[in-house]
């Protein structure tokens, strides 16, 4: 067998299907996208080469593009620095309660994660409906005055509302990762730390967290990628509105290509988005590699 794998032809034959899939599914589409990004094609009819005009317009005049990237950044910040710590704390609590209670609570927290995006969006659009949604009814009950906020339509609340829905659905995943990670931390090491005089805080920050570092880095990378990919939920709930306040880049490039018929411009957006996404992923991976080496 070893001899077989040492044969270069065999190795090449085994690698070719994977490379072929990558070339056809990624390299060629990106190549086409790059080509069309240099045109003024509307998706129908003839087109002209416009050079870097689309890129210049996006980078210098398109405030919606920058807002959509900013919203992606806000979502990454919230998932990494708010959702994850909360999920970690809850996972630590669940690791300490009885197995039966823990199982029930884990199932409960994970339910949103198994629901489809369409169902989750419809659910929250109805809950947040200003006229008959349950959220305003409950708030009216507690405040004693009628609350008629259009959570998804009001410029002051729309972005917060869609981010809440995204976090609500994603929380279960983070919790599951952290809980699973915590269960793999050897109890003996934690007990040894306590015998050495470490309190619970020190045990977690100096012993448990370093052991869980690979899990935490995986969760952060997934958060960054899923924040950048955010599309369906926004598309189905606000469509990026009101105005462009809840616009995310993946939705925006779709709308430019297929709603505004600016196919060339949409492709330029997608190329820039690929560059930003790859760059951000590399930065995050590099950060965790460096931190991992320090740990």
């Amino acid at each position, binding site marked *: 067998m070893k001899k077989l794998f040492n044969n270069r032809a065999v190795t090449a034959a085994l690698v070719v299907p994977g490379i072929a899939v990558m070339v056809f599914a990624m390299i060629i589409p990106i190549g086409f996208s790059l080509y069309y990004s240099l045109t003024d094609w*509307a*998706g*129908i*009819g*003839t087109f002209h080469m416009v050079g870097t005009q689309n890129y210049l317009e996006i980078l210098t005049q398109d405030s919606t593009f920058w807002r959509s990237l900013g919203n992606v950044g806000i979502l990454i910040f919230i998932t990494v620095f708010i959702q994850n710590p909360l999920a970690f704390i809850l996972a630590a609590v669940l690791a300490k309660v009885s197995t039966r209670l823990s199982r029930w609570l884990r199932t409960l927290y994970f339910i949103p994660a198994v629901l489809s995006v369409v169902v989750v969006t419809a659910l929250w*659009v109805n809950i947040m*409906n*200003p*006229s*008959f949604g349950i959220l305003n009814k409950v708030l009216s009950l507690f405040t004693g005055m009628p609350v*008629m*906020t*259009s959570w*998804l*339509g*009001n*410029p002051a609340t729309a972005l917060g509302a869609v981010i809440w829905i995204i976090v609500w659905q994603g929380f279960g995943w983070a919790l599951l990762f952290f809980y699973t990670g915590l269960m793999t931390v050897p109890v003996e090491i934690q007990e040894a730390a306590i015998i050495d005089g470490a309190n619970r805080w020190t045990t977690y920050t100096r012993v448990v967290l370093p052991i869980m570092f690979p899990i935490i880095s995986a969760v952060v990378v997934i958060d960054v990628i899923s924040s950048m990919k955010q599309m369906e939920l926004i598309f189905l*709930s*606000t*469509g990026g*509105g*009101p*105005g*462009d*306040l809840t616009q995310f880049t993946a939705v925006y490039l779709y*709308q*430019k*290509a*297929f*709603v*505004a*018929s*600016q*196919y060339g411009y949409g492709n330029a957006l997608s190329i820039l988005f690929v560059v930003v996404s790859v760059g951000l992923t590399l930065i995050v991976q590099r950060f965790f590699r460096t931190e991992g080496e320090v740990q």
Partner: protein
Amino acid sequence: MKKTLAVLASLVLLAGVAGAQAKTTIKLGDNLPDRTSGMGLVFDTINAEFKAANPGVDIAVESYPDQPWQEKVKIYVAANQLPDINKYWSFPGMFKPLIDSKLVQPLDKPYFDKLGYMPGALESNVFGGKLYGVPLTADGWVVYYNKKLFKDAGVAVPTTYEDLVASAAKFRAKGIIPMVTDGKDQWPLVITWDNLTERVSGDYGLIQKAFDRKIKFTQPEFVQGAKLLQQLVKSGVFADDLLVSDYGASRNLFGQGRAAMYVMGTWEVGLAADANFSQEFRDNVDAFKFPVLKSGKGKADDFMAWFGGNIFVNATGKNAALGVKYLQYLGQRWPGLAWEKQAGYPAQKVTPRDSDTVLAKTLLKIGSEAKQTSGGPPSTDRSNAEFKDAIQKAAGELCAGIITPEQFCAKIDAAADKAAKK
């Protein structure tokens, strides 16, 4: 004997397979996902009749809501998978790019001239002297209302903008949503702005002059129209979820008796015959003319009307000839069936009947009383898709209070400039 029977059975099977293979399937795409009532039901009836008359033909229908269907057409064109027959829109900004790409099969105009189309209906589908699409509906902008909810709230039918604004508080006091529309997709907001601008100026031609760049969209009439639209939102006339309520959601709120008014096109004549809604609603639904301004130049009988919805054959499809045959059949059957089922306001002349719904009679009356019509499509569809996207987005921002009426007009003026240069 057994052997003979087996051979015969095999022959029958082979004949069946051969027969099944010989059947031609026409693909038809439209924006009518509801096939139980309205235009969707009319289409299905015509499809069944056409299949019965042409035994070797099958029709595969795919339907999406309005906006997703428009996007789907663009995706299909890019992927070279456009269905054989497509329900679409005759607006130049949408239809002409398909014609220029030679995707639309020219039709025999003399044949359709004999089918009783209203003046201007077929012409809205003529480009470069050739007929490319068959018009389906005559569209106008009206306000539908629920008579029972008006009675419950003690509100008289508004004839002026001021009456409309004043009615909001009365409806809200009774827990009734005053008015709904598809605010999420924003185009009804733009058409409402078109109407308000005309009510200010009394001149439907003003908008076209701005598109032709003879005047600017920053003129006072346009700004005043934008102010009036924003005021409708601020004064609570529209539902609080206006900007997240799509076509189906807003229509259902009205049909379920939760909203008193629904500002929409005359293609919704089927509301009074829609079995999905209660009999009480169907008995109480009616329409009134878009209100005038007390200090405006526009008159109640100025009617914004156009021929929008059409149907065309994919010239590059393998069933183009069969598609043309289908359109010719549809042209004959559409007006009768659409009016019989009160599913739409056909672009062909119809004969009023005593059995017509109250709503249908009112819409016919509004049309017949019109002394001035817009003679062209809404401003969303007078330019290219990029402009349409820009004006719709700006209308959403205006209604959300993100921009002022002056900024709205400046934005669309810049978009019109950009479109004109292209």
